[in-house]
């Protein structure tokens, strides 16, 4: 039994799909003439005929792309760099007829690298987008929102193939109907035809002379295959670069994050292009790209393509009545680098000064909320007006932003700071950090910026906005004058840089 297929492999069926995959590879590498006619022959005859021709081509040491495609077709899995090198060295030292038999024997001996039971399609000269996480999960925070706003816009304007990974994370496959809905129709309840879903059978998807876009931070298990794809397959690899928090601010994340991210960086260093979601994110990745010159690599070409800052859709409508007691709204997952702890400390100072206001926290618990939880418990025990709302719907979030006096988002590290942009687009002033992407967003108005490591600075900013109505009103007017960057603009610029540019190396 195979765990993934859930049914017994039938030898003849496997040979039929092996014939199919090798035909696809041969068509790409050798042209139609190479296929000949093996109609009516038993399964496997075509495969062995094609392997002979394909291996001959692969003996040319300069054809790493051909070796990559042959191994992918044979094993139903993208090869790693080690597998490619081993195969190349083997071909250089082994007579042709032995190499043919050895390759097919290896497939039979090691059928579990990927999915030997599935047929494959080739995307030749096209664009593939890896949306694996968004396809498999309903989570909808930072990265997932970017993917679900951007990739459907691409699909509407361009020829794009969205792909996920097989469960072993060694090769791309097509999306199932519910998965496609999670990416392209998120938040709606699309009609999925039950019969169509039942009969759905995935196909492997293999890029050839194409652009592969990683729109998410992929599963760490993909690193070895993706590094080889970027370096040896002849495809170009483009990425959205969100942030390097697990490395640059490692002390604020769990160690497993740093390990996974270092695996991702083994792919980044071989990628061709990387679009940072802010100047700050671009600078972070450019720093990494500069550091790999020490190992003889150029690193990806890094450019800033700034994320959109549209108000969420639910924002339209009449302004919500503001409460009599001013509300300070604290946004963000409750984990160390979001730094809500400092805001709570500033609030306690101001309550002791006699100011009257409420603090509301929106955002779920993150990987560690030990310190903030203790602070919240202490404040609640002292009967301070603190409300922990946890994770809320988009509609509720907008309602909270609109009825707040101002938002505090003084994070220690952000790739972008989507909550800042969205609060401003909704017309609510924001206290945010005076560096990095948060400072970039603040440049266009509506914000007070502070050093988030300086409790006095945060206290002063809160005091000012709680006591100086003119200042708050001035910032509110500034929010109205901010240019709004739309998801359409973001999607178009991202496509232009990551996919369309002619001068791709």
């Amino acid at each position, binding site marked *: 039994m195979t765990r993934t297929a859930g049914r017994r492999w039938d030898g003849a069926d496997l040979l039929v799909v092996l014939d199919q995959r090798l035909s696809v590879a041969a068509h790409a590498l050798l042209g139609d003439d190479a296929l000949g006619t093996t109609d009516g022959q038993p399964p496997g005859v075509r495969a062995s005929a094609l392997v002979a021709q394909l291996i001959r081509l692969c003996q040319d*040491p300069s054809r790493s792309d051909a070796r990559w495609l042959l191994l992918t077709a044979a094993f139903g899995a993208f090869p790693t*760099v*080690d597998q490619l*090198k081993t195969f190349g*060295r083997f071909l*250089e*030292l082994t007579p042709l007829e032995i190499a043919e038999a050895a390759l097919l024997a290896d497939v039979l001996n090691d059928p579990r690298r990927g999915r030997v039971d599935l047929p494959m399609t080739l995307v030749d000269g096209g664009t593939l987008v890896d949306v694996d996480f968004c396809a498999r999960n309903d989570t909808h925070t930072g990265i997932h929102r970017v993917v679900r706003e951007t990739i459907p816009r691409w699909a509407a304007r361009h020829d794009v193939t969205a792909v996920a990974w097989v469960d072993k994370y060694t090769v791309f496959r097509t999306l199932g109907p519910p998965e496609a809905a999670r990416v392209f129709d998120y938040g709606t309840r699309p009609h999925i035809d039950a019969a169509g879903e039942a009969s759905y059978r995935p196909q492997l998807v293999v890029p050839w002379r194409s652009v592969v876009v990683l729109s998410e931070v992929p599963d760490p298990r993909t*690193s*070895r295959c993706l*590094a080889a794809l970027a370096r040896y397959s002849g495809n170009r690899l483009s990425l959205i670069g969100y*942030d*390097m928090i*697990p*490395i*640059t*601010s*490692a*002390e604020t994340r769990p*160690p*497993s*994050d*740093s*390990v996974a*991210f*270092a*695996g991702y*960086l*083994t792919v980044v*260093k071989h990628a061709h292009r990387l679009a940072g979601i802010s100047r*700050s*994110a671009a*600078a*972070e*990745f*450019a*720093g*990494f*790209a*500069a*550091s*790999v*010159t*020490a*190992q*003889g690599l150029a690193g990806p070409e890094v450019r800033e393509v700034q994320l959109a800052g549209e108000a969420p859709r639910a924002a339209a409508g009449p302004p919500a009545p503001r409460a009599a007691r001013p509300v300070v709204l604290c946004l963000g997952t409750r984990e160390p680098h979001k730094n809500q702890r400092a805001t709570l*400390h500033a609030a*306690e*100072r101001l309550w*002791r000064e006699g100011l009257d206001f409420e603090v509301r926290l929106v955002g779920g618990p993150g990987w560690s909320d030990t*310190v903030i939880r203790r602070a919240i418990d202490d404040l609640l025990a002292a009967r301070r007006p603190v409300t922990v709302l946890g994770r809320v719907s988009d509609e509720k979030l907008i309602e909270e932003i609109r009825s707040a006096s101002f938002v505090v988002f003084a994070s*220690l*590290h952000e790739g972008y700071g989507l909550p800042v942009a969205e609060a401003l687009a909704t017309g609510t002033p924001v206290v945010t*950090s*005076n*560096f*990095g*992407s948060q*400072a970039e967003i603040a440049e266009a108005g509506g914000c007070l910026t502070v*050093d988030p490591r300086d*409790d006095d600075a945060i206290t002063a900013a809160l005091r000012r906005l709680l006591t100086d109505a003119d200042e708050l009103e001035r910032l509110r007017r500034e929010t109205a004058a901010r240019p709004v960057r739309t998801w359409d603009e973001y999607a178009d610029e991202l496509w232009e840089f990551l996919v369309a540019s002619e001068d791709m190396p």
Partner: protein
Amino acid sequence: MAHIPAGHRAAWASRMQLLRAVLLDDRRDGEPDQRRAAGGLPDALRDVVDPCNRAHVWLTLAVLTGRLPDRTTVVEVARADEFDGGLTLWRAVVDLTTRESAGWTVRVAVDEVLVDLAHTASTVLTTGIQRVARETARRWLRDHALTPVSWSHGFQSIRELTAVERERIEQGRAEEDVDARPEATVVVPWHCRYVVPELAAEPARSARLLALAELTPNRTGVIGFDCVPITSAETTHTGFAAVFAGNLAAIRHFDRVATISGAAAAEYSGWRSSLSAIGVSGPLIEAVQLPVEAAVPDADDLAAASSRFLVGGLPLVLVVGSHEPRKNHLAVLHAAELLWREGLQFSLSFVGGNAWGSAGFTRRVLDLQRQGRPVDTESRLSDGRLWAAYRLARCTLFPSFNEGFGLPVAESLGAGTPVITSSFGSMAELAAEGGALTCDPHDDHSLADALRTLLTDDAVHARLSEEARRRPTRTWDMYAAEVWDFLVERGPADA
């Protein structure tokens, strides 16, 4: 605060006098008096400790408990102190003092140079990093006033070295393991130069060094070897990236990093420019290239190495380094096999231990030996015989994917033997001064071409040998003096 052992009270009483003296001195130095309400503290501390000042909280916890606090502890205590006049600080002192730490002798080091040798002092083993730390520290101890230090177990506190540990640094040999740590005096640095000439990556050590570097008036410097766990994670143990990233989080707040090569400086500089995302400028980084002092092997070593390595009259190709994937030894085996098939005659010897990910290498060596190829491996070799092997070799190979320095390249050239190495990074830096051919380590044929040249072209071989012999010598004395100058002498003035 019911069941406080008498020993704790006695320890606090005497340590309070230390703390008081240090902070009174600080005030004489003109530090503005910013004391806030300190009514929650014992009388002896009320007029000197500002319980809301993070540096004061750090110092108070370190001195009174004998253990260094991490950043979160200091910040949270200082915050709570604002509302209770230091009661939280005193509670933290009570909570964090252990029976063990109450028994330690504590000394506050003011205006000293402290050199952190925790790992190097604990072993007589000599990896590349330990060799650098030991050779450097030995010369600093000879030439300058400084205090070498280690850490108490579990990295709770910085402490003076034991006599045995000091001997390990100064002589490079001593009993392997003497359990003499607990009674050593704990050292709390204050306005010191704190220098780390080794990799200090243990998570508990990193967390405490982060607080020390960020929150206290100490000045900090470190030798930077490479950033391989982050830039080439595919070549290191899974998990080490996180440990190393923790080290970088501490180094972020250090004042200076002396890297061992220009390539290592490029790695650290790339990392530092990433710090703009968090509004941190990061340390000043400067390359101080490592030296190599070639030893002249004696006749016994030469004879022993000859009988061990030379196969008939075949030229010897030598590869020095552990068999981890980053060293690219599979490419060496493939290039050698291509040349053997061409009919070239030479023997190939590897000197270095097995390591993470070396199984494929071991298998391939066995394959080739079964086919009768003259290839073998040697895992342990004395320094004298290694230098002899360098001299006996026709050439050496070092086609690594990423190195902070590339010691075997420098050693081969120091012995006057041509080397084939990678065409980038620290290896290219070493090659630039002559005696080397460079290749693309990702291309086996590029490596094979270079090896063929050195085996068959006597003119090239003679030219490179001559170049190697003419290279300027760089000594450990020069290196130690330059690093000291950069990390200690030219460090920024005390804040």
